[in-house]
Structures are given as C-alpha cells and as structure tokens.
C-alpha cells in the first residue's frame, strides 16, 4: 500500500484527515521521511481550542520531534514549531499542545530529526466546534456560592456606605440615616438583581448562538427508487448552505461562508454506508454517482429489509471531510444488479465468533482479529490488527481496494460513533491528495479537484499489486460501549467483508 502511494507521488507529504461521527481525533500511521511514526491528534471540542498531538516514533531513537499548525491553504504565516516533550513511561513518544485558532480545515505538520536525517508528515485536521462543555456540578456550586457571597456583599457595602460612609469620624448614624441605608440596600438589591438578570440574558444569548453554530453536516433527503430498473438509493443534499453555494449574494445575506467544491476520494465523489438498525446485522458500502454534487444515486446491493442508518462520506477541496447522516426504510433486495459498481459490497449476518475472533469470508478464506485478552479501553490505542488466510490456511494476498489494502468501518451500536478507517489511519485519500497538490505550490493548486480526479484515474489504470494479508488500523475507540467493526478487503476481484464485535471498557480516571 505504501508502495502504491509512493507510486502516486504523494508520499513526500503523507496526510490524514477526519471528520466523522462522534470520533473527532485524527490518526496517522506511516512514514515521516525515513522514520515510521504514529501520530494522534486529539482535537478540542471548541475552536479556538488546544489540540494535543502525540507522536510515536517506531524503531528509531530520534533527536527531536516538532509540531506546528496552519490553516489548510497555508495562506498565513506560522510560528516556529513547538518541540515535543517526551511522554514519561512511553519511550519514543512525544507530546505537543497547540492552539487551533481557525475553524475549518487545518494542517498539523510533524517533523522528526534523528540520526537518519529529517522527515516530516502533514496531517490534515478538521477543526469544528462539536459540543458545549457542561458546567461540572462542583464548579457550578462554587460559582453559585461565590456569586451569592458577592451579591450579598455588595448590597451590604452599599448600605454601609450610606449608613456610616458619609458620617464624620466617630459619629453614630441616627434613625433616619439607618432607614436611608436600608432603602439604599433595597435599591441596590433591585439594581444588582437587574444586572445579574441582564448578565444571564446575555449569557443565554451567547449560549444559544454557540449551540446554533455547532458543526452539523449538510441536511440530506433519502429515498429509495426502483422505477424501471434495479432498486436504487437516492441521496439529495437539501441544505441551503450547499444548494445556494453559487449565489454569493444569498450567502452574504445569510452570513454563510462559501464551501469549496467536492473532490473525489478514492476515485469516488461519495462513499455511502448503510447499517441495518437496530442490531447492525447488515452493512453495505456503495458509491453513488452524481452530476451536480447535489443529487447522488447508487444501485443497492443485496440487503435484508429493515431500517438503515445511512452515512455519506464526502470531501471538500479544502480537505474538509464530512459525513452526511440520515435514515431510510428499505425492502429486501435479493439480487445483485448487473449495473452494480464492482467496488460496491454488502454484508448480512452475525459478527465473528467472540472466542476465536475469526470470520470466514465468502471465498473460503478467513479473517482473524489478532488480539489478546486485554480489554479494549476507551481513548486508548486499540489493536485493530487483522490477518487474512486463504482457504488452505496459508497467508493470503490482497488486491488494492479503492487504493487501499483494506477499509474498516467502526460503529457504536447506538449510531453515535461512526468512522471509516484505513491502514494509514483516519485518512481521506481525497484530502491527502488535495494537501499534496497545495504542498507542491504549483499551478495545480487552482484546480485541485481536477488534479485529484486525474490522479484517481491514473491509480485505477495501475496493475493490481499484491498486498500481504496482514492489515492494521491505528485507532482509539472514543467512548465505552458496544461496537461493530466491519473490515473489507478485495480478493479475486471481489470485495470481501467480515464483521467483528468489540466491547469497549470505560477509561479509568488515572489511565491517561
């Protein structure tokens, strides 16, 4: 796989991007020049906010690891990179904390210096506000107590000022002055109540505006169509921020920044995933076609009837990758249409046996999740390592599937976590290519979409390489819960899918 990427000429800047559901962190595993690194960018939930970058250098002792952040198009200057601090107890791992100031598509550049020279990797990250931190109860109680103390204090001070503050030293207040002080306290009580109330209205307004501005993927409409042909799924982006994207006057009036065009990702404009809910008993990965990047249509592969959660991965030219989300009820689809994209695939059935963690693929080969009995813990690197053997038990070889050795999809059973993984991490190849073209600094930068499409076509024409059937995905499950992992590889010209279940334990408070 890495060889394939080098052949495409984008290994000089290896890139990773993510914008998935409930799993905002970015992962990259691969080369940074002569070094093999694993980079984990833990994104803040608000922007501006602080991202934590963990870089692990595998197999080398290096002198220094630095990191820096810039906006996606590098149109601005950057400060000197920050030197990573070694993580205690984790040899070869370095940590950096960097502010991300600009919302949208950004890049993290990790540079490694060691005995074998210098190498770097650019990790695209999508910076969006995706949640509002609730106020912890102890902090709320502390602030309430302090606020009450200050409120009573200022009212008392106002009373003391009128009662004694204007009297000559030593003079005692008479009854009239005492009453004036009480009236002043009452007036200040009303005044400061209004001040606090006004502050609350202001705060509520800020909070309302913030919640309104939280990142949400484009609104979509889903429908099933089967008139005069095989059943198809239609996804239409109905969000006015996208449908009105060519009307700059409308965007200006609505205070909406224009989105950059969509580009292909692994040669497809959209990767559409369907998961049967509840139970996650069926899964499909298809690639809709589009003429206007608003209306997307895909032939449905064989699937059982039921309700499906739908996720559509798209990538903007800026490198901003997003997942569109919807739901649809489908009838049973029993046959594979002749017009089906050869890279479309579906899977229905139970997950691999929990004791052996081994699944039989439909060509007789097996896929085994190589893991020990160590529990999987949320927010800690998980060992997503899979070995594929042929029907005779010998190590199998794989064919590139959409330019990758394998694809994995991870989903929590309630649908609140969904992510599409590759062996190089949480990558969108389209974002990788877009950043690579910008890095070249040539005139391609003004037509990145076309350049990416050209590169995708070149990749499709390449002879299929033989890839060892041993794949792993760098990732950490974001939260505790029950997950299903679908792993897809290509053998014998067809996509083979296996499903695995994972129970993720909560992270101990002291574990990180």
């Amino acid at each position, binding site marked *: 796989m890495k060889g394939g990427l080098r052949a495409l000429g984008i290994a000089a800047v290896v890139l990773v991007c993510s914008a998935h559901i409930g799993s905002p962190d970015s992962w990259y595993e691969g080369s940074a020049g002569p070094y093999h690194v694993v980079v984990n960018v833990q994104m803040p939930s*608000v922007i501006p906010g602080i991202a934590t970058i963990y870089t692990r250098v595998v197999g080398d002792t290096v002198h220094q690891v630095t990191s820096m*952040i810039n906006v996606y198009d590098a149109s601005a200057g950057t400060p000197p990179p920050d030197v990573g601090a070694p993580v205690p107890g984790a040899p070869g791992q370095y940590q950096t904390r960097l502010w991300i100031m600009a919302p949208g598509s950004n890049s993290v550049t990790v540079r490694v210096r060691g005995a074998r020279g210098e190498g770097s990797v650019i990790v695209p990250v999508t910076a969006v506000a995706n949640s509002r*931190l609730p106020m912890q109860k102890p902090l709320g109680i502390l602030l309430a107590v302090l606020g009450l103390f*200050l409120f009573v204090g200022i009212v*008392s001070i106002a009373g003391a*000022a009128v009662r*004694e503050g204007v009297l000559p030293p030593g003079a005692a207040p008479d009854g009239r002055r005492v009453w004036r002080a009480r009236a002043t306290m009452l007036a200040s009580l009303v005044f400061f109540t209004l001040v606090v109330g006004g*502050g609350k209205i202001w*705060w509520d307004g800020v909070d309302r505006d913030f919640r309104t501005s939280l990142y949400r993927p484009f609104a979509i409409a889903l429908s099933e169509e089967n008139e005069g042909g095989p059943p198809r799924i239609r996804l239409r982006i109905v969000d006015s921020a996208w449908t009105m994207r060519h009307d700059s006057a409308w965007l200006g009036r609505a205070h909406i920044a224009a989105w950059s065009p969509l580009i292909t990702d692994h040669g497809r404009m959209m990767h559409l995933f369907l998961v049967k809910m509840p139970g996650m008993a069926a899964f499909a990965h298809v690639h809709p076609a589009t003429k206007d990047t608003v209306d997307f249509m895909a032939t449905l592969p064989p699937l059982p009837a039921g309700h499906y959660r739908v996720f559509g991965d798209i990538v903007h030219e800026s490198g901003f990758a997003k997942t569109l989300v919807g739901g649809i009820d489908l009838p049973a689809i029993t046959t594979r249409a002749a017009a089906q994209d050869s890279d479309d695939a579906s899977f229905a059935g139970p997950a691999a046996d929990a004791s052996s963690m081994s699944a039989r693929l439909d060509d007789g080969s097996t896929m085994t999740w190589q893991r020990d009995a160590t529990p999987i813990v949320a927010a800690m690197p998980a060992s997503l390592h899979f070995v594929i053997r042929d029907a005779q038990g010998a190590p199998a070889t794989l064919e590139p599937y959409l330019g990758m050795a394998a694809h994995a999809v991870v989903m929590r059973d309630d649908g609140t976590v969904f992510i599409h993984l590759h062996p190089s991490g949480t990558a969108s190849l389209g974002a990788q290519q877009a950043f690579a073209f910008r890095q070249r600094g040539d005139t391609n930068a003004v037509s990145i979409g076309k350049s990416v499409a050209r590169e995708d076509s070149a990749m499709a024409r390449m002879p299929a390489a033989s890839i060892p059937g041993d794949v792993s995905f760098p990732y950490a499950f974001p939260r505790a819960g029950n997950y299903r992992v679908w792993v897809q590889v290509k053998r014998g010209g067809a996509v083979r899918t296996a499903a695995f279940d994972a129970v993720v334990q909560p992270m101990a408070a002291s574990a990180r």
Partner: protein
Amino acid sequence: MASIATPVRAVSTIGDAAQRTSTRMWPLYAVLCSSTCIVVGLLWDISWHETVGRDTFWTLPHLLEQFGAVLAGVSCGWLVLQTTFRGTAESRAESVRFWGFLGPLGAWVTIWGTFVMITSAPFDNWWHNAYGLDVQIVSPPHMVLALGMVAIQIGALLFALGGQNRATDAHEMRRLGWAYTAAAGVLITMIATLISEYASRANEMHSALFYQVAGGALTLFVVAVSRAGRLRFSATGAAAVYMGIMLLMMWTLQLFPAVPKLAPIYREITHMVPPSFPLLLVFPALAVDLLVRWNAGRHDWLMSVALGVAFVLVLVACQWYFADFLLSPGARNYVFAGDQWAYMVRPGPFQHRFWNLARDATGHPSFPLFLRGLGIAVMIGAASARVGLWVGNGMSRVMR
C-alpha cells in the same frame, strides 16, 4: 444637591493630623499601586494577545494583574483585621462596620473587587473550554473580571476620597487630592480600555458610534471626578494621568521584541503591538472642570445638559482632525504608533479608511446623518453627565 460638601472637622477623638495621616497612607499607596498594576497588566495583556497570542495563566501580564489583585486584597484585609482587633480609636472612628468588621469604605470595595476577580478565574477558564477562547474584550467572564478590576480602582478612589474629604490641612489636602486624581486617572484608563473595541482606533473617529460610546462611558466618570475633586482641575489631571499611562505603555511596549506564537499569522510582527494613541481626553475634561467650577451653584439637571454638550463637542473637535492625521503616513512612527495591527488581522485597505460612516440610501457618506448620530451622542453624554453629577455629589460626602 449641587453643593460640594465642605470639609468636616473630625470629632474630638482625633489627635494630631499628621500622625493620623501617616498611619493611613500605606494602605492608600498599596491600593493605588495595585490599581495601577491591574490596568498596566490589562494593557500589557491586550498587547500580548495581539502580538504573541499564546495564553496561559502564567504569562507576565497575567502575573502583574494577579499581583495587583493579591496586593489589594491582602493589604485591605490586613487593614480591616488590624482596625477591627487592634485599631486605635481614630482608625475605628474612620471606619464603617461590615458584618462585624471595621474598615474604611475603600477597603471593603477593594476586598469585594478582589473576590470578584478571584471568582472570574474559574468562570473564565470554564468559558474558554465551553465556548472557545474569546478574543474579544467584551464577554461575560471578562466583564466579571473587569467588574472586579473596576471595584479595586473605585476602592482606591474611595480611599483617597475619604482622606481628601477629611483633610483640613492645605498640604495634606493637596497631597490627598493628587492621590485622588491619580486613582481617578487609573479608573478612567480602565474604562477607556473596556470601551476600546468601539472607541479607540482612529478608524472609528468619524463614526457617531464612537462619540456615543465615549460620551456614554467617559462623561460619567470625568464629571464625577470633577465634581468630587478638591483640586482645581481634578478631571483634567485624571485625564492627563490616563493619557500618560497610555502613552507610556504605547512607547514602552513597542520597544520589546516579540513574535506571534499562534497561527494563522497574517502580518510580520517583530515587536509588541502597542495600544492606540490615547484619546485627547484632557480637552473635554478641561471643559468639564471649567463648567463644574463656573456652574457650581446651578441646577444639576441643566448643568448635565451643558456638560454633555461640552464633553461630546470638544471631543469631536479634538478627535475629528486628529483622526485624519493618525490615519496618515505621518503617524506611522514610534511616537504615534499609527497603523499597528494584531498578527491575526489580514492586511487590507480598511486599515487606512474610516469605519461605520453614516451613509444615505445611495451608500454615500452623509454628514446630516452623522449629525443626527452626534445628537444622540450628546443626549447620551448629557444623561451620563447627570449620573456623573449624582455620583460626584455622593463621592464628595465620603468621609470614611
């Protein structure tokens, strides 16, 4: 209502005036020092955000602000404990009682301000985590912090006021009058900084909004300071202190090399970005002082109209043409620090234009519409002056 309180002779328990003054000066100096540290720290902090960007609890400007708050709280807390448990008859006689403790009014306001600043810290930290780092001055947690800062500065003012209003000796009155003027100048610097998002840049000085904001916020304090001051030109002196602090900060900060530490960076910055050239506040303050002295016996309602008109119109007369100069190439130097912008501001022609101009239906600048906005500024200034007179009358009666 309009009369200025005359100095009241202390009761018979008061002994030697010089002795009494010497025992009272240290807390005044301590609070004045903390008040100055806070406003200098605030200006430095704003410059830090515009230059370096990267922010922690432990940056030097933050440490200076925290030192100011701690110094204010500790010195006033010590004064209260000393007065309550080991105070002399004189010091107890010059105190007000608060929840069983004794201390000067200024000490209580200062302590309250310190607690407000302490409260703002966890609130601000949570705010940054919940909504992202807020780079604007005017936000709820920043306003809580500012309330604490202003309270400490008002505490310093009350400290000086109590001494000034009790003083019978001319030398003592002059000394305390200057302390009062200095405290008032620091307070005005704080207020001018809080409104600086709307009323500090030369680009804003041909907009009615500039005069409405400045007229509303500054007239109150300038008038109150003038009314309660015992020196002949208290407001002018306080305005001079404001201009002095701003000029010193402006001329000092830009001497220090510094570079941005956050991306995206849109301009090449090699030294600390200074604050804008201060408002020419001494001129409207002088007009206020003259009117307050001349009209000392007149009705405050009429007086407030005259003060509002005078403050706003003199400010317009001073700033209108000065703004033309500040936007010109002639001001782009060390002395006037024109055309200085934060690292995150994209360069553009807006830098050298006036903003928020009143425009007619065709989109052209309209002087009649500006005059209408200016009329509103005058009305706001008059209302602010009326509150200022009321506050100033109260301040002139403070004795403890």
